[in-house]
């Protein structure tokens, strides 16, 4: 068992932070979670159903809450971390309100920020009322009504993949990995909410690399009649009837398309969180070309940083789904235990 002095600070109270905290607390460590929001759970709070099995996200939140319901865990919400210093073997974590918390190990679980879709100016997000993001659509699903701003039920809906991902123009050459399957899931959800709706997914490549993803993709076509068009939307505008007019190239048919839509959903990608990037700058943590935290070793040390005793968990290192995030968080806990208990410093 660890000595009582073995304390761990976890920066971020999303799914990675909560899972790591739960694992460490059960192993007897004294854990402090620092979360910038007033509630824990991170982005999962904004989601309705999860792929591939359309599980209600509230079930995941309930699971994570059970994980941190442990007397060894102190939860500090509404606080941000400014700086992390290591002096000898002790870390000092400074927060925005002037607190300094000492710890024997630190786990960064700062997660990701959704790509700000306004940056893809050609899509008119934040300008055209009926251009929304995947996160906005999840909120509509949760409310139980998918409608345009004017209250009309959309009959023709487009989903744009790779918004802010695989896009050199915005500086993100990497794939966010989850957007394709999110689009497939959301396209099916739209049809469930609006059975007569026609749904079009505009994609570059369908990257269905996870368990049951390909099956979901197939089901979306066979059972829900989702149309997949290989091509990027080049511009969006609004006509006199407040319908969206999009231009896209159908690269398989080899012809340009002009289409009128009632609603357009942007599959915003994942980016390194601003909070994480700030801590990287202030505390000397290395980041990769994709601006996420750079793991010490991609094969054998994806939870370790360039500072011994400071670890990473979840999407602060790369885009991941919830299953992968929880596995990565458990691996982070194992690395912390190895570091503090086995002396592998």
């Amino acid at each position, binding site marked *: 068992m660890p000595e009582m002095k073995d304390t761990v600070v976890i920066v971020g109270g999303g799914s990675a932070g909560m899972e790591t905290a739960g694992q460490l607390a059960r192993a007897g460590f004294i854990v402090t979670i620092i979360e910038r929001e007033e509630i824990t759970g991170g982005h999962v709070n904004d989601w309705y159903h999860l792929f591939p099995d359309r599980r209600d996200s509230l079930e995941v939140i309930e699971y994570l809450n059970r994980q941190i319901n442990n007397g060894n865990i102190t939860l500090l919400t509404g606080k941000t971390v400014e700086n992390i210093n290591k002096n000898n073997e002790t870390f000092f974590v400074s927060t925005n309100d002037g607190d300094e918390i000492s710890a024997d190990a630190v786990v960064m679980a700062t997660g990701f920020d959704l790509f700000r879709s*306004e940056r893809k*100016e*050609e899509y*008119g*997000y*934040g*300008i*055209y*009322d009926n251009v929304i993001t995947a996160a906005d659509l999840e909120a509509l699903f949760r409310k139980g009504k998918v409608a345009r701003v004017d209250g009309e039920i959309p009959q023709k809906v487009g989903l744009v993949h790779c918004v802010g991902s695989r896009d050199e123009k915005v500086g993100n050459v990497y794939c966010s990995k989850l957007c394709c399957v999110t689009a497939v899931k959301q396209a099916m959800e739209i049809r469930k909410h609006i059975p007569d709706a026609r749904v079009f997914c505009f994609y570059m490549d369908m990257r269905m690399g996870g368990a049951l993803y390909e099956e979901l993709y197939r089901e979306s076509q066979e059972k829900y009649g989702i149309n997949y068009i290989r091509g990027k939307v080049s*511009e969006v*505008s*609004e*006509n*006199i009837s407040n319908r969206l*007019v999009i231009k896209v190239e159908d690269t398989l048919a080899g012809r340009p398309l002009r289409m009128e839509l009632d609603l357009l959903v942007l599959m915003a990608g994942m980016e390194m969180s601003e909070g994480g990037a700030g801590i990287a700058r202030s505390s000397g943590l290395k980041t990769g070309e994709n601006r996420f935290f750079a793991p010490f070793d991609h094969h054998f040390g994806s939870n370790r940083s360039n500072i011994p005793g400071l670890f990473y968990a979840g999407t602060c290192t790369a885009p991941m789904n919830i299953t992968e995030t929880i596995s990565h968080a458990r691996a982070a806990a194992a690395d912390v235990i190895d570091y503090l208990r086995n002396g592998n410093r």
Partner: protein
Amino acid sequence: MKAEGKKRIWAEYQKEIADDHFFYVRSCIRQTFFPGSEQFFLHFMRDVLGKDVYENPSHTTCTAIGYHGDIVPFSTIMTVVARHFALMKEAGYKNIAISCVTSFGIYTEIIETWKHFPAELEKTREYLLKATGREFDIPENMAHASDIIYKFRNEIADKAKYRLVSKQTGEPLNVVEHIGCHYSKMFPKYGVGGAEFPNVLGGMIEAWGGNVVDYPERRHCCGFGFRQYLIQANRGYSLSNSVKKFESMKPFKPDFVLTNCPGCNMFMDKWQYTIKEMDGTVYGDSGESIPVLTYEELAGLVMGYNPWDLGLQYHMVQSEPLLRKLGIEFDPLNKYQTKDGKQMPVPENLINA
């Protein structure tokens, strides 16, 4: 539509526009097709605002029409532009004001090329020195003439005799703005408001009381497109692009089109005549065609200048319906008279006349 979304984008594309001391470079074709435009710009800057604007008679074409027509090589056009910069340096100016959007696009393309490929800059210095014995500096500030009118749009609004409001209904006029592909599509940072939701002309229209129309083909080419028109066999393609634009804007009932670029103005004006001749189609409200103005002409109109001194009669689509909407007084009898009262020939087949 959310106006604050556009304002957020505009905030990211605020270019620095010099306040005074400009080296002004004219367009090849504007003086022929809209002879009042550059004249008004110089008058407004020098006589109304009291600014220093210098012109050098040795300034030539930038050769962009040849470049985009694939007959002038890039190294040649870089050397021609370098010569313009040499004239500017010799005259002691650091701020360049460019009348033509095509030239503006060429200047931005060349400056960006030199920035990313310094060897090209050195080669150009060598070519210019060998050919002319001249040396040059890259301008410290580069503005399109419309950027400068945009900068002083509120001063114009303060001096306005007319606002862009219908005299009959009191409602703002609906204005289509067209910035031209080469203003900011290649390098959004050089344009006021960027490329997707530009504000250089929109800012003028709003400051002077009008309503900017956002229509589906707002970003589309006017139809000129250089090779689309310059190669005779492609002219049907040029025309079809203009038709696409006009069909798209028609439901919004625009009162007029405001353009940034000489080519765009020419084609959006003259192709309306062609389309009407071909199949009788007109795109304006009340069976009329849509007047197409330059930003200098519009500035002059709102400030109360005589429309014929501004050269509006030299467009193919005549502006009388617009003048009546704005309540601008004009004398139809001296429309084609010279300043000393001589009657010029009256063109036939003008639209809206």
